[in-house]
Each structure stands twice: as C-alpha cells, then as structure tokens.
C-alpha cells in the first residue's frame, strides 16, 4: 500500500449502533497499521484529537473506528455531528496492543473488553478469523453488544450487568470467576482501568503469568 500523503480522511459512512455509539467509516488514504493499533482522530479545523483503536482490519479497503459519544467531551460530540463527505484529521497509527506475528493458530487467547474497548479485538478477529479466542464483552445492556455477528459462533460472550439479554448476566469478572482460564492462555484486556485491574488480579489468581497479560487502558 502506498504511503499516505496527507492526513485528512473523508468520511464514507456513519453507522449508528446505539443512540450514543457509532462506527465512522473513512477513506483509508494509504494509512498503514497493524491490528490493535490506535490513531488520533479529530474534526477538521479543530485543535483537539482523541485516540481510537482501529475497528477495521489491516486488509480492509476502508478505515473504521468505534465511537461512543461523551457529551462533555472535546472531540466525540464534534465527531457525532459529522456526515459522509465531511473530513476528519488522522495521525499515523501507533501502539503496542498487537498480536505476535508468529502466533500459532491453536494458541488459546482470551480477549476481555469493556464497552468500546472491543475495537482492537474486532480488528484482530477480522484480520485473523482462524484465531482460537474467547471474547468477553462487558456492557450494561444486550443492545450494546456491538455487531456481535462479526464473531464466530460461540466465541463471543456478552456479559450484561443491567439486563438479562446477553449471554451471561453479570460482569466480565463474574464470568471469569465462574469460568477459569487455562494458565497457558494469552490474555488481552482493553477498556476501563478498573475492569483491567480487577481482571488482572483474577487471571493471576488463576495462574496466568503477568507477562502473558497485555493491556490497553481507555481513558
């Protein structure tokens, strides 16, 4: 793929998933990345940007991010107002929350996300569908199980704390306590820091070495 020559990317589609959460699909414009990396995105002519894990896969024609509007935020309300044909400013992709290049397909993987923290996992799975993974997604309501059809049958578990419409009623931490992992599992945690700390403790109690736990904190 040719190296991109400018950082203004045109919006192709805005896909609403819930009243506050949406996927922005943008022109790729030559941007290179590895699944799990993040980009800084901001409205054109604005002075603020925010980091977003890339939702789409490196092999996709377009670029996607998953956004939840924070009403008091500096960036997301502006992004929410954007329409197809509008532009957004994007910096180069960076980040270390990536899978090893030499990962064996049979290697057990645990992905744990809260809310929009599912983004890098969506990219992982779209990039490498044959991965041997289990994805725990912590959300309040089943309606927040964003595009669950994109994950292979039986691999995605929506852990809903506020309704019983998911696959498991309760938090991801409750699920993990009831369903311990094999200590050889490589564990990837993405989302809010409190969830990550709690899951980190549980995994260590279950015998997973800290070197096999990878984290991406959303602020």
């Amino acid at each position: 793929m040719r190296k991109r020559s400018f950082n203004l990317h045109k919006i192709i589609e805005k896909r609403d998933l819930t009243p506050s959460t949406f996927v922005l699909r943008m022109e790729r414009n030559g941007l290179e990345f590895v699944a799990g990396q993040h980009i800084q995105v901001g409205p054109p002519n604005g002075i603020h940007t925010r980091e977003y894990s890339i939702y789409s896969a490196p092999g996709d024609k377009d670029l996607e991010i998953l956004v939840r509007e924070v009403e008091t935020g500096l960036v997301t309300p502006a992004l929410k107002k954007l329409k197809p044909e509008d532009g957004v400013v994007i910096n180069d992709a960076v980040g270390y929350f990536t899978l090893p290049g030499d990962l064996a397909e049979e290697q057990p993987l645990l992905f744990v996300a809260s809310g929009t923290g599912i983004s890098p996992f969506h990219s992982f799975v779209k990039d490498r569908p044959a991965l041997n993974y289990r994805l725990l997604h912590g959300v309040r309501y089943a309606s927040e199980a964003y595009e669950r059809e994109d994950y292979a049958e039986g691999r995605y578990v929506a852990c809903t704390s506020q309704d019983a419409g998911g696959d498991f009623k309760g938090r991801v931490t409750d699920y993990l306590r009831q369903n311990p992992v094999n200590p050889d599992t490589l564990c990837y945690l993405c989302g809010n820091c409190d969830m990550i700390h709690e899951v980190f403790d549980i995994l260590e109690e279950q015998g997973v070495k800290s070197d096999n736990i990878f984290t991406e904190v959303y602020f």
Partner: protein
Amino acid sequence: MKYHLVVLGCQMNHADAERMQAIMAKLGYAETEREEDADVIGIIACSVRQKAIDKVYSKIAKWNKWKNKKNLLTFVSGCVLPDDREKFLKLFDLVFDMKELASFPAMLSQYGVTTPISNTALIHDEALQEAARPATVAEKLNFSSLKPAENKVKAAPQTWEVEPIYNSTFEAFIPIQNGCNKFCTFCAVPYTRGREVSRPSADILEEAGKLIERGYKSITLLGQNVNSYGLDKKGEELSFADLLDHLGAMADASGKEVWIYYTSPHPRDMTRDVIEAMARRRSLAKQVHLPVQSGDDKVLIRMNRKHSMERYREVVGWIRDLLPTATLFTDVIVGFTGETDEQFENTRAAVREFKYNMAYIAMYSPRPGAASFAWQDDVDHAVKKERYAVLTEDLEKEAVVHTRELEGKTVRMLVRGKDRKEGYLSGHTEGKIIVRFASEDDSLIGSFVDVQIESVRPFSAEGKLVNAAVTL
C-alpha cells in the same frame, strides 16, 4: 540588534535552543542576558508542568507592556499544547513548531523585520558549506556507507536540520529522535511533540564525528524514547543498538577519550543488543537511566507504561550481567492517581531490588493535556510528601552502598565547573556520580582528571586530585 531567549524544561528544549541560537547568530543578532535590552525575545516553552506554562503567560504579559515603549518582536516555540497554542497566537507575534525552525528567518522576513544580515537564505546554503568542509571522522572511517537510502528524502522538517551553536566546549547533546508514541497517561509529550521521528543515522554520526574531532568529552544522545530509534522507518534505518555500536566504534577508533550517553530509554523497547553494544565499546559510557516510574504492575497499567515489572527486571538483569560496573538511574512518580499504600510498598521494594545509584523522584501532579489530568488526584498531598521522603531515604541507603565502594579508590572524572563550595571544582564520573575536589585551577574545567576518593555521601563523593592527565 540583540535577542534574548528563555529556555524552559528538558535537555531536548536546550538542544533545540542551541539550534535557535545558531539561526539568530547567522541572522546577525547578538544574544543578551538582559531581556530589557533585546529587540527580539523568544521563549522555548515546556508543558510538562503547569508552573512552566504559567511562566510563559507571565513573561508575555510583561513583554507586551514593553511594546508601548519600544519596537519588540516576541515568539514562542517548544512543547505547547493545542489550547495554549490558540491563546499564544493572540499574545505572541510568532508562534511556531520547533520543526519549522529552519523557516524562522523567512517568518521574520514576512513579519517585516529587517534583520542585521538580511539574508533569509542563510540557512539553506549547506551545499556550499558541504563542498568546503574537511572530512569528518565518520567519513574517514567510511561510516557514510551506513547512510540509509531514504536519508535524502525530505519528509517533515525537523529542528536537527539546523546546525547548532553548542553552549559548552566539552559536552554536547545530539537529538536523535523527536516525539513519542507511548501515551503514558501522566505525560503530555505525544500531544506537544507528535509521533516518534528518527533522525537519519548518517547525520547523527556526522555530528558526533565532528564533536569527537573537536575534543568533546561528553556526548549525550537525546530523544523521548531513544531506544525506539529507527522503528518509525520500518527496517530502513539502523536500530538503536546498531547506531550505538557504530558511534562507539567511531569514538573508540578516533583515539580520543569521550563518554557517550543516551537518555531516556523506555523499558519496553530496550533490547539486549543495546547493552551488548555498551559492553563492547569503550566509549559508550557505563551508565543507564531506565525510568521505572512505579514498582507496581497495576500502577504501571494505569500509567499506560506498556511494560510489566517482570520485563523491567529482565532488562536490569542484562545490565547487571553485561555491564557489572554500570550505574543505574531511574525516574519514579509517587502518589499517582489511585496509588495505594501496598502499591507504594512495591515501589520501595523495587528501589531495594534494583539498587539504584540515583532516582529522580517526583510527587505526582496532574499535567494539563495528559490523560490523567481528567482523573481525580486522589492521593492526599501529605501522603505524597511522606512517600517522597520515605522513598528518598530508601534510595539513599542503597546508593551509599555504591559510593562507599569508591572510598580510597582513584576514579576518572570529567570536570564540569566550579563547585558551590568555595575553592572546589566538581564534575562526574563515567557513571555520573558527582565528585568534587579542592582546586582553583579553572583550566581543568572540561578535561578528564583522576581523583582519589576520600569521603562519600549517597549521591556524591569528595576526593583529592591525583593527576590532571592530558587527554586527547
């Protein structure tokens, strides 16, 4: 015509300032220490602490009042957050990114300023200078073959394209990289300096070669994450280990005595071959500054440091195995958001385990622009002060074990200047342990001498001059 430059913050800003000074000199401006005497006043800002940014606002308010009485042009550059930049645009005559430094003369010209030497093409005459200059050490040793193919492709301009005027005749700082990709939650640098960009290795080798030839004794490679050097070039540039190795080989072959340092590395990107290169090359100083920030894995996660204590331990293991004489420095933040007593105890344990020679300990304070600024600063100030004091005491206990080993021994040191104690000169060892000795011979400043250590404190030592050996 005169200019005055205020430089705030880190060594990177000071290295940038040396390049700013070079441009001003080429334009015919003389530097003045008195801002009242200046026709042009600039400030290289730092956004790491609010206090530094407050100083910028305070200074410009004063300077703008002077404009009622005299012609004055003001500018600001350096590490500036987007919000502050917007405000500075209304307060300063010129606001620019350090990467645009090479265009500064053109900016002055566009602003209508007639410079003492009105030739805005001055800094673009490298081709002429190139033809006239003698061969450097790097060229003599044929290191030019290391030049990556894309070296001459001009991407975004960088400050290092301007040749500096060094403020010291014996120690120099060479920027090798700018920006940061790490996004530590306590730090705003990714928002002020942007993504990591590596300077072409051939340029670094050339600058270092010239400095070695001129007899510089201490050279420090600068970057926010020096050991991610080259990664942004995706295989088309030397790795940091290779860069160090080539620099070390060049310095060793020069026959000159020089200590080459680097700061700061990130534990995540540190590789064993960096330490191997340090062990292999005499001129690569045996001192490592490896920021740990916290000794607790969960605090490291909240800080978004991207490494565990296990990883940090592995790196220190390499240093101890391959560089048994090396000193180890670090940075620590105490009282970071959410840090519990137990987590702080883990940091104390790390200080004991890694036996640091020096740690720069900071009490956490939220920094505007950093992700953690939005979080509640929930560790009481009194608790932070207590943790700071306790950790400093722990550090002193560990550091003094090392300095005591120096007692009675003769150590090599670089004399850097007069000590605060009357009649003494001071400097540091290769491991950056501060040493002073009685002497009023200012001609020793900037040279290596041997000193026999007679008394020590945790982070420093005092001795008597054994010989002021002539060094090449």
